[in-house]
């Protein structure tokens, strides 16, 4: 038996790696045709924040801005992974600069921070590929290398997800054991949720589209996952680093500090602490009918429960986070100093800056350095010794060069109204200027408002909490792309949910196959999602390219998308878990294609019937998306666990 198990696990491992490699190869093949696919200009893929084109433009500006520093730049900035990849939007010059300086100094210190091997590998990859990245002759960049970088980022993210998922699963198993519901583990054929989540992430069509469409979001995603991974593994500096960089890159991950602290404090996953108390009290109160021997054994095996909040780690984390952020700010300050100081980054957007214009005097030598591909060795010298250089600097002196760029203001005040799959752009294009600030506050407070209640309710499941936070912020963020709002981010955090779905309801693997408690319902959801995902490009095409459609049609699809928010899928699949009893028939239905996992399914049913869980009618308010279902599902799951532990027959 055990041998068999071992072989199956090794098989699984192999299976995972082959599938992962296959996905990478698939991406590479797509990248080869990416020029024909022309994905980079799709509004679903590239937003003002993640469009690589803008990123390169801002870099171009940065390059041409400081010819005097080019020497430095070429020598030191070669190891700047995010510089080219993070798009700084229209006026986000500072961001690019910042990333430059940031990464320039970070990479040599990577071993210092005791990063895991992946991070170091990434830095190496980036260092190698950057000279070619820089080589964008005639305003072009080396598309292949750039995309390769994104593929690597995606792959790394998947690997990190896998590692985190395994970690989570262990924690979950432990908590189940401690609750005495070990039977659940024994009966179910354990599918490693990490593998599944990673594969879902890698094979999700939307992830692939984003990766091939060369938007910079894979990098942002990688950093977020990095921080969560670091927290799960209790690598405090890594977690802090990931969090600081993620916040710096796209601001919204700032709210992840709550789940990160909870992960570090309570561990990645545990049932509610009340459960243990209840269990103990119930044991004391009602004489358990089960055999005492088993109970004692279980009690013996039950280690000291990780209820205590480990303050030390949290303090450690905060210290590291402040250290990293000070470091980042310092570097920003240094690099942005000549463009108006650090204040530029935090300036509110509509500040009128008339005199501050970016002035670029580009001369031939500089063009050589900037645009033309040439080998990078000669240029610094050439540039500095160029006789025309004096003129250049003179030009810069005469006109005070200040880059007006408000990094975070750009994210928060939604000045760019180009269409994306979110709802804010159209809203702010139509809303009366008088109310603009009000609604800006409302939408952003909506994100912040849910932090506390969710944290209170889900503090025992910090990973899931992180997932919910990201889902909420991706719904309400200013420039969402398919990568963040879509199911893509979800699978990336599927591992957060997966362990709870009884070690992988395989239906989750197919993002569009919706296992709901109600067949008609799931069918409707599925159709709606598919319909929208086809209608949205059509409407976009009609409106933008043909000029025959109306903006309202496109906005309607964006709206419906926000409502359907495919998250419902995985999440409501969680929800289904809660009502097995009354809905056996439909459960059978969706389980049928996956008859191979019949055992799992049976076990699931048995458990639930044993538990006697009454179907808590999850009002799958599918219109209101996403998170709601997942949260309710999670809460129900907790409830069920409690019942399992308390009312054990």
């Amino acid at each position: 038996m055990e041998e068999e198990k071992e072989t199956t696990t090794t098989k699984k491992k192999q299976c995972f790696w082959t599938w992962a490699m296959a996905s990478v190869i698939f991406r590479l093949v797509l990248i080869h045709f990416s020029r024909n696919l022309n994905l980079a200009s799709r509004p679903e893929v590239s937003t003002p924040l993640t469009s690589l084109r803008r990123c390169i433009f801002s870099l171009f500006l940065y390059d041409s801005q400081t010819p005097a520093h080019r020497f430095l730049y070429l020598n030191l900035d070669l190891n700047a992974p995010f510089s080219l990849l993070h798009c700084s939007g229209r006026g986000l010059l500072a961001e690019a600069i910042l990333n430059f300086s940031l990464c320039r100094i970070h990479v040599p210190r990577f071993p210092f921070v005791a990063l895991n091997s992946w991070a170091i590998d990434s830095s190496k990859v980036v260092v190698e590929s950057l000279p070619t990245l820089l080589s964008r002759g005639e305003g072009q960049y080396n598309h292949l290398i750039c995309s390769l970088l994104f593929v690597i980022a995606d792959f790394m993210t998947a690997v990190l997800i896998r590692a985190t998922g395994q970690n989570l699963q262990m924690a979950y198993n432990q908590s189940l054991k401690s609750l005495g519901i070990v039977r659940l583990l024994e009966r179910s054929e354990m599918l490693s949720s990490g593998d599944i989540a990673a594969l879902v992430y890698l094979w999700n069509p939307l992830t692939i589209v984003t990766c091939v469409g060369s938007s910079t979001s894979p990098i942002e995603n990688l950093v977020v996952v990095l921080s969560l991974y670091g927290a799960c593994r209790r690598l405090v500096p890594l977690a802090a680093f990931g969090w600081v960089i993620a916040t710096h890159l796209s601001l919204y991950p700032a709210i992840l500090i709550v789940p990160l602290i909870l992960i570090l404090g309570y561990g990645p996953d545990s049932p509610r602490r009340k459960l243990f108390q209840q269990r103990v009290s119930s044991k004391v109160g009602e004489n358990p009918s089960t055999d005492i021997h088993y109970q004692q054994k279980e009690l013996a095996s039950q280690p000291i429960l990780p209820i205590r909040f480990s303050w030390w780690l949290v303090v450690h984390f905060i210290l590291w986070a402040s250290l990293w952020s000070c470091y980042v700010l310092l570097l920003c300050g240094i690099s942005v100093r000549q463009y108006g100081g650090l204040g530029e980054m935090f300036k509110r957007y509509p500040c009128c800056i008339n005199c501050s214009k970016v002035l670029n005097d580009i001369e031939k030598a500089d063009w050589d350095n900037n645009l033309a591909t040439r080998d990078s060795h000669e240029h610094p010298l050439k540039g500095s010794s160029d006789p025309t250089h004096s003129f250049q600097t003179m030009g810069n002196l005469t006109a005070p060069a200040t880059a007006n760029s408000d990094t975070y203001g750009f994210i928060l005040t939604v000045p760019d109204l180009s269409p994306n799959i979110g709802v804010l752009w159209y809203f702010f294009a139509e809303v009366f200027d008088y109310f603009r600030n009000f609604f800006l506050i409302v939408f952003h407070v909506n994100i912040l408002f849910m932090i506390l209640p969710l944290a209170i309710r889900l503090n025992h499941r910090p990973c899931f909490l992180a997932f919910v936070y990201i889902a909420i912020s991706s719904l309400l963020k200013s420039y969402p792309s398919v990568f963040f709002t879509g199911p893509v981010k979800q699978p990336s955090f599927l591992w957060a949910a997966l362990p709870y779905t009884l070690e992988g309801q395989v239906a989750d693997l197919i993002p569009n196959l919706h296992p709901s408690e109600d067949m008609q319902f799931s069918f409707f959801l599925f159709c709606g999602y598919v319909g929208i995902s086809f209608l949205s490009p059509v409407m976009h095409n009609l409106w933008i390219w043909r000029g025959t459609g109306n903006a309202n049609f496109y906005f309607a699809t964006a709206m419906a998308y926000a409502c359907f928010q495919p998250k419902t899928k995985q999440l409501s699949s969680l929800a289904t878990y809660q009502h097995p009893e009354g809905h056996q028939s439909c459960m059978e239905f969706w389980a049928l294609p996956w008859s191979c996992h019949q055992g799992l399914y049976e076990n699931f049913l048995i458990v639930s019937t044993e538990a006697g869980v009454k179907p808590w009618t999850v009002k799958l308010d599918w219109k209101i998306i996403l998170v709601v279902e997942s949260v309710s599902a999670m809460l129900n799951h907790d409830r069920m666990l409690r019942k399992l532990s308390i009312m054990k027959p």
Partner: protein
Amino acid sequence: MAAVLRFLIAVLLFSSIASASLSQEEEEEFSEELLLKPLADRKVLAHFHFESKAPPTRTYGHHHRLFPKALYQLVQKFRIREMELSFTQGRWNYERWGGFDPISSSNAKPPGVELWAVFDVPHDLVDASWKNLTHTLSGLFCASINFLESSTAYSAPDWGFQPFSGSLRYGSLPREAVCTENLTPWLKLLPCRDKAGLAALMDRPSIYRGFYHSQRLRLSSTEFGSTELESGIALDQTLTVVLQPTTSQRASMTYSSDSVLQPSWSLSSIFGRKVSGRCVLAKSSNVYVQVERGLVSELKNLHAEDEGSGAGNVTFEKTWNNPGFELSIAPNRVIKEVNILHDETSIVLYEYLIDNYSNSEPFDLGFTWKFPVVWSSPQAPLHASRFLMGSGNERGAIAISLKATEPSDGLWVADTIENSCMLRFNVFQVVPWYVRVYFHTLQVFVDGKPQSVTDFIERMRISPSEDKVSPGVMEMALKLPCCVKSVTLTLEFDKGFLHIDEYPPDANQGFDIPSAVISFPDFHASMHFLKDDSLNKSPLLSKFQEKSPVLCYTEVLLVPLTTPDFSMPYNVITITCTVFALYFGSLLNVLRRRVGEEERFLKRKDSKKTGRLGQLLSKLFAKLRGKSWEPTQTQSASSSLISSKLIFKVILVAGIAAGWQYYSG
């Protein structure tokens, strides 16, 4: 007594005369001139030039006789060193009307309104002065110049527009419609308005019927300069009109060759009016007829054919009645341009003094063609045109195409240093922020082949646009070998999306991108005349003699932008808010739900221990419903209990009510 009075008067008179003679050099001046020029494509160019000069305030004071008070105050208030405002309708046809003469390089303007000004204020005050200036001018000229106030509309070019422009601000409104309401205030600045003098020719219908109409106002003052040489304020007002003379019957006569005789014209035929005398306030009032270089050479050939080779070459320029054309009135003077390089062909100007004409004997110059002549106007080294590429409303590309023209001999003062002929030119382009130009996508195609940008661009200055704050400005200095036939510059852009209020009323028409300016710093359009005192007195001719770099403007581009739905902003707001409310409410509901359940759980526990009555009632109710009562209740039972409790309460109340009714009634 009378003698004393007489003496006093004499003294006063004398003193006044003396003072007048003293300050004679610093007197206000006004002069009016009109230049008429037959164009190669059967049209006539009429160029009115009015110049007013005010002596420096320091010596002359604040009160003026001739100089318009409004503009004097403007200059004083905003400390303007130089300013130019032009209202233009139609596009100057560089190919046909010439691109290499003083008129085309300084009077050919982009469609709409163009305004630039140099201020003599500290750097940080320039923008404020500009804003105030735009508002004042918009009031003065009944135009929407005040739209140039917003920082998205104007730019601060460094060297691309004019060399060494420090505190210069440049803005243009391509879509401004120009009409008489702009001309009338402009005429008001003239001392005689359009009541007398040359301005009386400006018959509105005939002026606005033309192909091109550009009214320009240029101020230059040395009031605030630190230089010793103070010349006060000079105001140039020009009106350039290209008119199509009505073809008479004679003109339709065709000659043996395919060429058609040019239509003959006279002042009264093109303007419908005659000059009935000069403006009495004007120092000089002249009319010039200019014969272009190309025409002169053609006529010379004609002349040679007529009179045999070599004969009459010297006297040709002096004659106003030659085989080619005939002027109805003998000119007062014939002025010939002195061409340094080539003596044979040069511009000829016929001068008429309006002083000699009066109401009874109005001036009506007639220009009669006798023989069909075909000639061409001098061209700028490159002919520029600009167009859009791409389709759809998401992105596109701007292309500036420059084609080398046939170098008219001797005009190209090519830069022949280093044995290689290089042609330098600057491109200055302002792009509004909603056209987001990616300057890094700049590509240069030389003779149709993509080339490295670095090989041709000498200098480049970019000020990237910022949403709703500033436009994108690009200044480029290019250097081309002379042998190049064509150059194309392309820049890609994304189209931005505006707020619903930012769209103009006719949003679907599209947005105009102002003209790009192509300037050739090495080429100067100027005429050289023989040194003569009388020439210097004519402001128009002295203007022609000034060295001015050759400029040309490209077309205005019309960029269609996507429009949101203008009809129902409320719907969008309400639907979006509803969705957010639903999200918020349902999430809160899910989070809150547990509390209720917990309470119920506790209640049940409590009721188990104490609530005998409740148990009894539920038992009773179960009996009533015909179900067996289960002591261990699941969640659903508890929920059904709640509902049964509710029903029970209702029944109880109903029963009490019925009892009350029964007993009391």
